[in-house]
């Protein structure tokens, strides 16, 4: 076995090669294609910004804006729901809290297709699980929100909730109980404790949770197909259409670059500030 500095470099090599071939190179290729003349399939054309111009002129900013806005709303809703949940789970010990934590984590490992499919079965009109049960038990007939943006948003929140919750629990573990008690003792109200103590101390967790949620929802497309009935074209869907049906790689690549730019603009500055070693040690 090797030691010290060389060992680190050798051990990092496989991961580095994987990320180079599977992450850096594809992204660079996408960037290169985005600069090729429209509807070409090679990389030998003269570089041009025509695709970016086309992306805006032909209204492709709309899917991008919708995806970004949807991701933002999803993040906010998830934060609002996950904060009280994380507080309950982190302040309480015992079998109920442990069981609940495991039960909330499990769905992460169940396919999105299964979970979104389940949600659509639940919301289905007429013979759906909810509508059918209400009709059979109470004779109440209800409509459905299926195939609307609201249903898609519900799916977004449902899928991404655990990704916000667990970083928040981690964040709250950085808030010593005594600091909260000291603040209360010094006259802080519940809201003041949240603003002055809990939020600043849990900030690394909140940041990671919000980032994960935003980035994952930014690219999400299954929610809109299964629940939203394509009520809106999300950006990933738009890219896919450019790549496959329209056979316009450069325009698809330009749209992909735009999504990557949004992602990078959000992720890089915040990721730079977080103390990873300290956080994992928790």
């Amino acid at each position: 076995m090797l030691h010290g500095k060389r060992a680190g470099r050798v051990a990092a090599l496989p991961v580095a090669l994987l990320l180079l071939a599977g992450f850096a190179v594809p992204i660079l290729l996408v960037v290169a294609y985005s600069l090729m003349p429209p509807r070409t399939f090679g990389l030998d054309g003269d570089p041009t910004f025509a695709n970016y111009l086309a992306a805006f002129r032909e209204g492709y900013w709309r899917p991008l804006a919708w995806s970004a806005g949807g991701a933002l709303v999803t993040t906010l809703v998830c934060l609002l729901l996950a904060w009280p949940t994380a507080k309950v789970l982190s302040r309480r010990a015992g079998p109920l809290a442990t069981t609940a934590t495991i039960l909330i984590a499990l769905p992460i490992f169940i396919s999105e297709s299964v979970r979104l499919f389940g949600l659509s079965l639940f919301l289905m009109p007429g013979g759906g699980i909810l509508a059918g049960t209400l009709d059979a038990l109470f004779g109440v007939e209800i409509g459905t929100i299926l195939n609307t943006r609201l249903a898609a948003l519900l799916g977004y929140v449902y899928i991404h909730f655990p990704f916000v919750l667990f970083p928040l629990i981690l964040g709250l573990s950085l808030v010593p109980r005594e600091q909260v008690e000291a603040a209360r003792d010094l006259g802080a109200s519940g809201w003041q404790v949240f603003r002055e103590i809990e939020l600043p101390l849990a900030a690394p967790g909140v940041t990671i949770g919000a980032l994960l949620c935003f980035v994952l929802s930014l690219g999400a497309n299954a929610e809109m197909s299964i629940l939203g009935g394509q009520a809106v074209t999300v950006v990933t869907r738009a890219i896919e259409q450019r790549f496959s049906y329209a056979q316009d790689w450069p325009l698809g690549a330009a749209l992909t670059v735009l999504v990557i730019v949004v992602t990078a603009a959000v992720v890089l500055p915040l990721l730079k500030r977080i103390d990873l070693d300290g956080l994992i040690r928790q």
Partner: protein
Amino acid sequence: MADASGGAPPILSIIGLSKRFGDTTAIDDVSLEIPEGEFFTVVGPSGSGKSTLLRILAGLETPDTGRVELRGRDLVGVPANARPTCMVFQSLALFRHMTVGQNVEFSQKMRGVPPAARREQALEKLRLVRLPESYYDRRVTQCSGGEQQRVALARALASDPEILFFDEPLSAIDFRLRKILEVEMKELHRRTGKTFLYITHSLEEAMVMSDRIAIMRDGRLVQVGTPAAIYHRPASRFVAQFMGEVNIFTVDGGRIEELAADGKGLGDGYLVVRPENLRPTGDADVSFDARVENDFMLGSRTQFHLKVGETVVIAELPGTAAQGIAPGSTGRWGFDLGDAVALED
């Protein structure tokens, strides 16, 4: 419980307070009155319920039964942030994401005091605890242990509490610094004139600082009194043991069991004898044959471990009197009953 202590009216009255956690009784029918301006200390081993008592007084726990009155106003049900009391925590609980100034100003900020006025008051409190004003902008994480202690005191004082509570704030500090801070704490008490309620597991610490002391055991107050009263007249073996090394003998029908000596008119119970009250003499109320096992030099005094039958008895003599007594020597040792404390429990 006898609580008469001078003429000052009580600022804090605790009446029949009890608290259980599951099967354990943390506080068991505690009643106590603390007069305005007193430095009162509750001493007890860990698990005696002293921290719970303090947390109830601060409003961080709710008692099962009983009342807590501040100048006659019932505090039970008043949340911690609405009580005119303030606590200095064992961990100090300084806000690590804030500067010294922000910590000290915290309570004023919560009340909506404008920044300029807050700052002025914070600087005044820093002076009061003898921290330079330049510390105002320093991060608390850059302060030494003793400085953090002072910041915590300044923060508590800045909330202008009617009573300050202290939850063993000196327990994690090394011996020398602790001695300095004990004196500072007592001085601060005198300068501010506030009522201090302090808890600790160290009777020694309590003796240095307090006007009165309560000894707590298994959720009950077993003795309340001035340091001198507790030192000279411990109410039970438990209290006596708390004072460090003492000899405790069993008395059965006027006979001191361990020494096989006559107790001259003592009833059944126990006899507490301090090491410094033992002398190498046969001319005392109680005397016995002993063999010197070991001697330990304690600076101005020397401690001897005496073997009496199977029992080890501890004696301490001043330097001059200790000369010539060597391990292995045998002789007669004794004490006067006037120096000993007879206890029933």
